[in-house]
């Protein structure tokens, strides 16, 4: 259970994070998406007790990150966006060191290490030097490390960045497995479609402000904005144009003479769309097709973040 209330981080006059409110239940996989500098890592650093907020607080399983950071550290496994490894340590020594850093007994560590390596598919790398692993392997190792004290909450800052498509799929499978184990997982990413595949809930952050939160369908509906409609005609293009432009919900008309096509934005609901089509038919327009172009998540993401750049 994570309860974030009014979390704010200010650097001088600049709000890296502005009044964030968010509640996540147990066993939820939460995706945090936003452009560069939106405030994802800032949020995660505060949750990981690495950064103190300017104001506000976050409770992780009832423990406050501001007042009892030591207790919070037991509850969370944190994987930073950028991290390094020690160059003279082998994979099992690496895990053993962090296990010991969480005060696990030597016997427990011995038992855990092969299990964790199996979970992240690194069993055959157990006796290799950590710095010789590839980036994707290091990332998986870091995930295994974050799991070593069996935390309830995982905070993964861009766990899939720099991974090849296959490794991404594997990362997704690992996260599914973690979900099955009942863990709450927070993941950040720049790529909305990728998150949509593995998350139950998604939050979109922009310039330090949470602009949407919900499941994937809700987010899509919330961020979709105006529908983009394509109308094809067999004849009477100008007539049709005049008809559609009379409707106050229509804007941004574009006429494609060659393709005998009209394109416009429509800010009404689905029902209003149906109404518009019916009226068009009654007006004897020679319509051969009337389609709403579906925006995919990528477009949605582009639309919001572009808005942010202009602001």
């Amino acid at each position, binding site marked *: 259970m994570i309860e974030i209330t009014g979390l704010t981080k200010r650097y001088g006059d600049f709000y890296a994070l502005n009044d964030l409110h968010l509640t996540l239940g147990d066993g939820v996989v939460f995706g945090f998406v936003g452009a560069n500098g939106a405030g994802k890592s800032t949020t995660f650093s505060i949750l990981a007790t*690495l950064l103190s907020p300017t104001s506000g607080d976050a409770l992780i399983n009832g423990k406050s990150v501001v007042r009892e950071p030591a207790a919070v550290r037991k509850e969370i496994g944190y994987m930073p966006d950028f991290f390094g490894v020690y160059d*003279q340590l082998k994979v099992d020594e690496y895990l053993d060191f962090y296990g010991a850093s969480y005060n696990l007994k030597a016997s427990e560590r011995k038992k855990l290490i092969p299990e964790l390596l199996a979970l992240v598919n690194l069993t055959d790398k157990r006796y290799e030097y950590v710095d010789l692993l590839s980036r994707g392997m290091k990332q998986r190792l870091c995930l295994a490390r974050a799991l070593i004290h069996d935390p309830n909450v995982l905070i993964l800052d861009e766990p899939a960045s720099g991974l090849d498509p296959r490794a991404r799929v594997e990362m997704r499978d690992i996260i599914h497995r973690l979900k099955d184990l009942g863990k709450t997982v927070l993941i950040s990413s720049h790529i909305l479609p990728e998150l949509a595949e593995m998350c139950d809930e998604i939050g979109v952050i922009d310039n330090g402000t949470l602009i949407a939160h919900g499941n994937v369908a809700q987010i899509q509906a919330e961020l979709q904005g105006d529908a983009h409609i394509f109308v094809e005609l067999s004849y009477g293009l100008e007539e049709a144009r005049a008809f559609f432009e009379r409707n106050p919900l229509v804007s941004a008309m574009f006429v494609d003479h060659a393709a005998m096509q009209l394109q416009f934005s429509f800010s009404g609901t689905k029902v209003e769309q149906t109404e518009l089509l019916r009226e068009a038919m009654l007006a004897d327009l020679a319509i051969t097709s009337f389609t709403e172009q579906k925006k995919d998540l990528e477009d949605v993401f582009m639309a919001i973040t572009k808005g942010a750049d202009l602001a």
Partner: protein
Amino acid sequence: MMDKLYNPMLMKEMKLRFRSFKSFSGLLFYLAVLCIFITGFVLIATDFKGHGYIEPTMSYGLFVLLSIVQMALVMFITPGVTAGAISSEREKQTLNILLTTTQSSAQLIIGKLLSSIAFIVLMLVAGLPIYSLVFLFGGVSPSQMITTFAFYFVTLVAIGSIGIFFSTITKKTIVAMIATYGAMIFLGAITAFLFFVSMIMTQSGVAPIVGGYLAYLFAAINPGALIITLTTPELTQVFQEMTGVTLPVWITYLAFYSTITVCCLTGAIKKLRTNMKTQR
């Protein structure tokens, strides 16, 4: 009980330290310097003939020389070993992860300090056979040797703490390194210079009393001066008459360096998770 005393940071650091070539070359450098001084000394003492004898007073001179060289080496090597303690973790981007574990700041800092101390103690021990050559010629008592080593220990713990403190408050290892060597220059050279200045103040009669106290103070925090007062009691007598302070130098030295150790370690422990506390 073993679990309570087990410090994962210490274990990891030992592993890393003894696996790196840097440690090996550091040790080699240290032993080489000691050998060079001894060989040079023996050659001079025997008039470069390759045979002859060394008088006990001569060998005592060798002991004093070696003790000072060794102190200088401790002051030279300890910053290099400790100034990267925290900042190198920061540069390698491993510090963040470390700070999210349940290790307390004190455990992390103490683990770092102990591993550095362990390495330098190993170095001192490795030099012991060379150092023990002086016993061959006589004139030095084992208790003097033990006292000297005890003060090496006090000094290296203090310097190590200074290094770790700077390493914690600076972002870059190189800056921490420069700051720590700066502190060494102050303790080793500037205090010696100020000692002479205050000495002249006393001698010339400008401020005989204050000058004496100042001279005492500067000598008491200078590791070189400490070794001299420890190894040559005759000089100590003269020194006491000149400064007018009868308190043995080593007591002041011990107090001063213990205070440095405590302050630096407390500071480092407080500052390690600084982002959590400041910037409110």
